[in-house]
């Protein structure tokens, strides 16, 4: 397949920013509708940014028919929309929608866009695939996979994960370190659903779900909504928070044969292999410039495969990378400092962007005390990364999110301190 020219639109670099972030609690059993969850998260993001309803005129969301619609939320919150777009999609949509929000503003369609994802991923449409989703009729194209019990995300991805172990000698213990490290990070996050640190042995001795995935290689299912607000950087400086400036975005980049990506190998190579041709030149940086990553952790393996294919290490050395401690708080390039999908909660990528925005503000919501004189509830960070203490990374300038839909599709977002 011929390469497609993706000449970097460097003229957009730094022109847009994320100015507000918000979320609900991460629970199992929210006891409320996705509509109520969404308004809760969006109101938090508005308060965070210091924006009222008349100052927001765009809204976007994504879902797998398990959420609510922008017009309902906008109505509830008294937001009059000049633009909205609710799209189908799961992981990797959040970064893609940030790019589309920039495009909508650049096109003059609106000025300030809220992006949200609302889901009762445990108590309604279970993200693991069990329940109602698993008993739907199987039609047409789905006949090539669903009748084989090849249905849930873990089942779908497992041949890619397995092949990576075969191709490169990646070991279960190496990959388990992703969960270990994210669980350490979660223990510094009061919001996280799972706050208890686990060991490599805990991961490897947890029950097998779908080889090579143990229970603890898989993310948590939770109920939650998450929201972020995108606007022009010029506007951002009038708002409450230090903005997270957007350097570059890549959205839903696909490997060849997005219908069934296994047709085009190597199957242990993921969409990041193609994303890196867009994201690095557009951002004008290299992997060495990135201080923190948010590599999507639907499974331990997804974090590793992406970091490797984006070029944070050589191809095939992802196992060494994730086991090395680089990704730990205090390490060279911490990953998913909130605990991510494996521990904080499952949001289809949004919580990893929210976390990076807060890191770039140098005001992550850990256990450190709030400075009572601060209008933005600035915490007095200790940079002592013990349990129930600090998780603020020191001297963060550039973050990268590595969004994952499946091995064949992903998105990315690079931000820098405003």
């Amino acid at each position, binding site marked *: 397949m011929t390469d497609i020219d993706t000449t970097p639109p460097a003229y957009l670099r730094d022109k847009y920013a994320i100015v507000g972030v918000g979320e609900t609690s991460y629970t199992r059993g929210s006891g409320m509708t996705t509509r109520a969850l969404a308004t809760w998260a969006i109101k938090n993001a508005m308060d965070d940014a210091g924006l009222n309803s008349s100052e927001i005129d765009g809204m976007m969301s994504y879902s797998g028919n398990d959420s609510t619609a922008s017009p309902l939320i906008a109505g509830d919150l008294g937001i009059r929309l000049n633009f909205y777009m609710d799209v189908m999609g799961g992981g990797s949509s959040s970064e893609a929608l940030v790019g589309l929000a920039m495009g909508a503003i650049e096109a003059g369609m609106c000025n300030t866009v809220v992006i949200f994802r609302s889901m009762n991923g445990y108590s309604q449409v279970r993200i693991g695939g069990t329940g109602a989703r698993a008993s739907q*009729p199987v039609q047409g194209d789905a006949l090539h996979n669903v009748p*084989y019990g090849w249905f849930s995300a873990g*089942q779908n991805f497992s*041949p890619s994960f397995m092949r990576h172990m*075969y191709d490169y000698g990646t070991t279960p213990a190496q990959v388990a370190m992703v969960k270990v490290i994210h669980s350490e990070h979660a223990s510094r996050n009061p919001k996280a659903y799972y706050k208890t640190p686990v060991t490599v042995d805990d991961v490897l001795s947890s029950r097998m779900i779908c080889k090579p995935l143990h229970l603890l290689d898989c993310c948590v299912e939770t109920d939650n909504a998450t929201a972020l607000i995108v606007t022009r950087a010029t506007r951002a400086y009038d708002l409450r928070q230090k903005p997270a400036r957007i350097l570059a975005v890549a959205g839903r980049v696909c490997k060849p044969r997005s219908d069934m990506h*296994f047709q085009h190998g190597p199957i242990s190579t993921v969409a990041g292999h193609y994303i890196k041709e867009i994201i690095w030149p557009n951002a004008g940086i290299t992997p060495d410039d990135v201080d923190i990553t948010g590599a999507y952790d639907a499974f331990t393996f997804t974090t590793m495969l992406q970091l490797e294919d984006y070029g944070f290490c050589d191809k095939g050395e992802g196992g060494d990378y994730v086991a090395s401690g680089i990704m730990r708080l205090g390490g060279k390039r911490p990953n998913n400092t909130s605990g991510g999908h494996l521990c904080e909660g499952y949001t289809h990528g949004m919580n990893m962007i929210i976390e990076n925005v807060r890191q770039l503000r140098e005001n992550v919501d850990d256990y450190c005390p709030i400075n009572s004189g601060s209008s933005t509830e600035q915490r007095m960070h200790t940079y002592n990364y013990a349990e129930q203490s600090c998780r603020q990374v020191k001297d963060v300038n550039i973050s990268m999110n590595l969004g994952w839909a499946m091995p064949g599709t992903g998105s990315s977002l690079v931000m820098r301190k405003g």
Partner: protein
Amino acid sequence: MVIGDYLGMSLSISDMDTENLTYFGYCSDGEFRLQKCLDCGFIRYPPGTACPWCSNRTFEWVVVEGQGEVHSYGEVHHAVQKGFGEKVPYMILVVDLDTQKGEPTEYEALRVVGNLVDEKGSLASPTLIKNVGIGSRVRMVFNKVSDGLALPFWALDENREQPTTPWRYPEE
């Protein structure tokens, strides 16, 4: 409309979905046929509406040998779908067909997905599963669901030499 039930799942193919109707219809007759592009001549899987290599929309259904080598696999120990509850563990194989392997580029192959089954066509036993991994030689078998619908599966190919130790997940 072709309909059928399999492991508690309700399967159907609409009359408009002619690609899948034809594909599964051939399977139901015990034949494995795939679409061959009438322009560039490459065969494609799964059934689609144009050629992934040259975008041409015209094709013919050609018989393809249902044999190949396991490229990768997943092994399910916790069922998500109800009908598989008593079938665990079961194996999902991604099989490189011998036909067109390494074409048009070295990374490509017709990779056909299916469960490992025994010689009778039933989902493989835990003992049989332990003998299969990357590199195992397999042949296609069909399980008929209803008129016009059979599903292809994979069985160990007793007529081919098997690797002495097919590659399996390292910690078993």
